């Protein structure tokens, strides 16, 4: 863990980091484009300073402003909020948030009840796989189901990932709309007192869930082995509690408890028991029709922090901010590349600014890659925005020319 000593160093290193390495230009372009049609100065930024002093309602006009502000305040953490109807620093009482990227926050602490390798703030290559699955499933759903194109994935600096959707429709979505999307994606429900957290019913499985299961299947057995989901007696008990059918439960317990502790072997034995049981007990089969799928989802499906997505003006850590506890850069990564990401190869402010560090060269390269990833997303966003505006202008012109027979929406 990084000690106090290093945190003190941060105040000296951050000004250099912000000037030399933080992709200011592309960052401002991203904010500007993501705030349109409102000026970027209506966008809230918030800083956390060295001694945890928190400043909200900041904003910038342009890159020069941004640089000045960074050098003046030297924020240890940089958060981004919503787009207000005025400059957020002025009238605070009647100001409202008009737009904001649709965001998702996935954090490994929400996996503590299923991951066995680490707990709380810790994270390793093994449990990172949960993030890989989450990223793939959510990215696919956003693109295929909702038709979003401008999606930015950011490593949160320690143990999670953030997703920013900048499409116009996503940015202007209201709070219930965000809630609906979050609920559409959310399959794991229930707190510490509920053992079975996934219920798929007995009708068909929804296309989006089917697709998520296909993604999970690519990783499931590997995760099962690495995490040992059902290896020890305790974990086996937790697993058995998911079974909604007492007979199936006792049958499974009898067989698995006697076996070796290897989770994969136990799982395969369970599949056998389940298949036989399902075939023989057609009357109780409704309850356990999708039990296998439900178990896989409970152990692997993304666990979203729904409140972050629902909230219209929830602040979220900016890309390329430095995580104050780890010193790691919140790098932008490609969703397809999440599985190749190595956590110790994520550049830290220390390795980037210290030439003598053994990781320096590699981290420099990785930092450049991250900036390039960011650029690609921003360029594509600027392109689609320009196209959308041209289209809108054309539609507006046309409807002026002819008499407007609009859809019901405008009429009511």
């Amino acid at each position, binding site marked *: 863990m990084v000690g106090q000593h290093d945190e003190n160093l941060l105040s000296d290193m951050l000004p250099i980091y912000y000037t030399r390495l933080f992709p200011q230009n592309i960052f401002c372009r991203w904010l500007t484009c993501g705030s349109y049609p409102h000026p970027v100065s209506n966008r809230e930024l918030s800083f956390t300073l060295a001694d945890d002093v928190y400043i909200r309602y900041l904003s910038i006009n342009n890159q020069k402003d941004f640089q000045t502000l960074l050098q003046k305040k030297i924020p240890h953490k940089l958060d981004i909020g919503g787009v207000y109807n005025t400059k957020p620093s002025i009238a605070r009482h009647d100001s409202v948030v008009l737009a904001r990227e649709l965001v998702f926050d996935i954090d490994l602490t929400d996996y503590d009840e299923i991951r066995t390798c680490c707990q709380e703030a810790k994270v390793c290559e093994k449990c990172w796989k949960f993030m890989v699955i989450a990223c793939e499933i959510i990215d696919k759903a956003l693109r295929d189901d909702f038709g*979003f194109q401008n999606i930015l994935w950011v490593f949160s600096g320690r143990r999670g990932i953030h997703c920013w959707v900048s499409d116009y429709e996503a940015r202007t979505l209201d709070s219930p709309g965000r809630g*609906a999307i979050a*609920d559409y994606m959310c399959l*794991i*429900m229930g707190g*510490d*007192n509920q053992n079975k957290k996934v219920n798929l019913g007995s009708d068909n499985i929804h296309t989006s869930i089917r697709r998520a299961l296909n993604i999970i299947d690519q990783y499931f057995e590997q995760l099962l082995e690495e995490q040992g989901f059902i290896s020890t007696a305790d974990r086996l008990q937790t697993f058995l509690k998911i079974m909604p059918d007492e007979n199936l439960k006792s049958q499974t317990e009898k067989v698995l408890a006697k076996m070796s502790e290897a989770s994969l072997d136990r799982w395969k034995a369970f599949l056998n028991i389940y298949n036989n049981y399902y075939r023989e007990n057609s009357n109780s089969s409704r309850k356990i029709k999708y039990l296998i799928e439900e178990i896989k989802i409970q152990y692997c499906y993304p*666990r979203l922090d*729904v409140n972050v997505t629902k909230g219209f003006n929830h602040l979220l850590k900016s890309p390329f901010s430095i995580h104050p506890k780890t010193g790691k850069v919140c790098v932008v990564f490609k969703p397809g590349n999440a599985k190749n990401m190595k956590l110790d190869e994520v550049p830290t402010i220390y390795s980037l600014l210290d030439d003598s560090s053994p990781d320096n060269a590699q981290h420099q390269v990785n930092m450049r890659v991250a900036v390039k990833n960011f650029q690609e997303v921003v360029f594509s966003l600027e392109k689609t925005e320009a196209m959308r505006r041209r289209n809108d202008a054309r539609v507006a012109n046309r409807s002026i020319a002819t008499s407007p027979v609009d859809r019901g929406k405008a009429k*009511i």
Partner: protein
Amino acid sequence: MDFKLKRKSIKTPISGSLKETYPHDLQFYKVPPTCDINLQEFETLALERVTLLRTLATATTLKGLRLNSEEYTEYVLGELRTQGLKYYARLCEKSGCAETAADFEARRKDHIAHFILRLAYCRTEELRRWFVAREMELFKMRFAVMRGEAVDVFFKLNNLCYTNITDNEKNEIIHYLRECLPYQNIDNMKFYKVKFYEVLDLVKTRKVYLSGGYAYIPHRDFISVLSALYRTHLRQSLAIASQHLGEIEQDERLVSLLKGLHQSYSGNDYSETKSVVPIESLDSLSLKSFPLCMRQLHEQLRMAHHLKHGGRLQYGLFLKGIGVTLEDSLRFWRDEFTKIMELDKFEKQYAYNVRYNYGKEGSKRNYSPFTCLKIINTPVGPGDCHGCPYRHCDTSNLKNKLLGYGYDPQAVHEVVDLAKKGHYQIACSKYFDTVHNEDVGLGINHPNQYFEESQKIIKGGIKVEPKKEKVTIKKEEIDDLEGMDFDEPL
């Protein structure tokens, strides 16, 4: 007497015959009424509509009927008739475009009453939510009973034109439609393509096929599109109405009535308390006077020295409600949390929340403790311990917990059984009786009500009269107001 409801949004003043004005039983209430009515009719219409909306609320919450199920419609219609609201029963029963004088009269009353209630319910966010949720139920019910030609007329009257997708298009995706929709005869249905945000309620419950930002819906799901439109319209209208309250309130005769309507709904919300409860007594109080939901939060906090956000909110507000002062509250949370974290971290990350609950931070609203309905309908995620134990605990966990407390197995069995059947609040009442060793049969609607009743028994030894009728019904109304989250996606 001039009772024009002055509104700036008037587009086209109503003129011409009733037939032109009210062609259909179901309307979007786009244009406010501009006729003159006398005070008495004003008042009657308002009260009658409140009764109608209350009936709807009772049907779903108290009776637990599923919206638009047969029992639901039957219950509502029956109630309306017994309460003498025949014209509403008429409108809700068939929803068509008949042209008798009685039909026109019913539509006129419906129209005026709706606009009066807008004025009464635009005052606060909570009232607005309650009103919108009820009006949505009413709208959906009336749309659902609409048949054949009336539907086409309704679409035409409101300029709703949507075109269905071609057979080719449909055949390409029919496999997915079958997978995603809970209907049997997909092959015979016509499908429409709309943007996903027009049918958010279907998206939310994953009952629709989405592709590339579009939702493919059959005709019968169209109610989702319409209700979304109606909801937006209503929300905006209420916002506009609230801006014009000043003008209306210059007339004192109206003010008292409109505010009176509101008063009949706002009972005790437990946001103000007189008594002071010292935190040293919480451990002992939690054994007897806390409902199970609070007791388990208290125990979790003592055990893990931490609660997640939802738990802090639910428990913190409850403590405020029973009379724990802000200073004590801060001390209480600090003592526990600092067992696992630095004082500094607590002060920076959690103290704000405690002060926030007491209305000292952020928007500085004095938040009310959660009602049972709110707690029951609150989402509970991994790692959370809040929520209603009768709803959010597995049966075996609940049973073990109660047995662990040492209660009579027979009574525990009854509580668990009630919870299993979905009677969460009755289960809570049974738990109350078990804990207090009495047979009170309270209608529990609020954790703070539970606390107060328990204190009455313990302190005064006064026998609580189970005034079921009056008490429960009045409380129920309060709950509706705040527990609307399940109707109104936030």
